[in-house]
């Protein structure tokens, strides 16, 4: 989905609130939220894709105005409700107020994952174009590279396609590649001497 999580290249954000070092958890509740998500995801056997998608479906306003561990809390509660461990009304009654959950899954369940790709279609040095498409479900193809042309710099292993695993028990496996995009190709702003690499699954790509 073209969600709020897909932040690469968006403009209007201010300075990075940088700190050179910080504790792993600033508050005890953050550690609890992290542990609860790990627990819920394990209990319901959520794939990495399903887990990430449960954050991506947050209301955009809530996403941007809440901290990282509030995202994890929201994901844990959403998965717990969707898999029947607890109900939304129980959560709100116990919390004594609103308990916002992520929005519904917009994509249908995947019944047929389609054929996997056992051998890489592309090799280092090949020019490839990223498919320009807007799937309603989970994807790990960032919006800022769609439709753009780049060069394969690395061929990695065969991995489960997140777009499939987020939407049911079916799985499809494909090679992933690291693709180098010149900054000028991405942003059309004449930047020199900079490139951005994105790691992409085989089916996100087409020959250029």
């Amino acid at each position, binding site marked *: 989905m073209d969600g709020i999580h897909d932040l*690469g*290249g968006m*403009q209007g954000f201010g300075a990075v609130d940088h700190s050179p070092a910080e504790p792993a958890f600033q508050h005890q509740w953050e550690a609890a939220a992290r542990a*609860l998500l790990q627990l819920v995801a394990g209990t319901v056997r959520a794939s990495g894709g399903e887990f990430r998608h449960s954050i991506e479906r947050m209301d955009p306003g809530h996403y941007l105005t809440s*901290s990282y561990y509030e995202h994890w809390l929201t994901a*844990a509660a959403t998965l717990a409700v969707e898999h029947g*461990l607890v109900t939304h009304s129980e959560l709100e009654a116990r919390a004594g107020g609103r308990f916002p959950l992520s929005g519904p899954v917009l994509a249908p369940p995947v019944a047929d994952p389609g054929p996997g790709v056992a051998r890489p279609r592309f090799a280092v040095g090949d020019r490839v174009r990223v498919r320009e498409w807007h799937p309603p479900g989970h994807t790990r193809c960032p919006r*800022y590279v769609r439709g753009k042309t780049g060069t394969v710099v690395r061929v990695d292993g065969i991995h489960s396609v997140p777009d499939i695993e987020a939407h049911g028990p079916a799985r499809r496996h494909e090679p992933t590649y690291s693709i180098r995009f010149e900054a000028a190709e991405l942003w059309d702003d004449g930047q020199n001497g900079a490139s951005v690499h994105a790691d992409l699954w085989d089916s996100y790509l087409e020959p250029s």
Partner: protein
Amino acid sequence: MNSAHHPAPLSPVEQRVAALQALLTERGLVPEGFIDEITRQYESEIGPMNGAKVVARAWVDPGYKQRLLADGAAAIAELGFGGPEGHHMVVVENTASVHNVIVCTLCSCYPWPVLGLPPAWYKDPPYRARMVREPRALLAEMGCALPDDVEIRVWDSSAEVRYLVLPQPPPGTEGRTEAELAAVVTRDSMIGVARL
């Protein structure tokens, strides 16, 4: 931390965490001590001190550096580090003419075994939005101004690989021991938002 005698009222987010935790506990889904154990692991066992040892070893041992650049996870495992978010590691080397920096635009991917959990700013929108769009300007803004002839390579961790930047050793460190060198390696230099 709240005192047991004068507990501060819970904030709304704390109330929500407590609600979920209580309901899951009542259903028997939260093992005794689970949350404390998770907290302990992330607070004491992983962190940038691990990555600093990897970097220092690469600086003093050319054979190790070669293995590290060829197969990051295997070379990192030689020092005893590995685990979740560290199974597929690619180490990218800074040189006088190339600077590498890592980001995760879609979420918060980060090499936990060598750097620990990511800092808040790494997970927040400004860094994720801007590092792929204006890397030279953002690096300068963060205190890492690079000459125009230094090429910048941004690595967006959008699939299964997690990245570690191998910084250049700072000037004047020749002849130091591996342990002394590890002490000068910063977390930011291994993310790539600083040079040493």
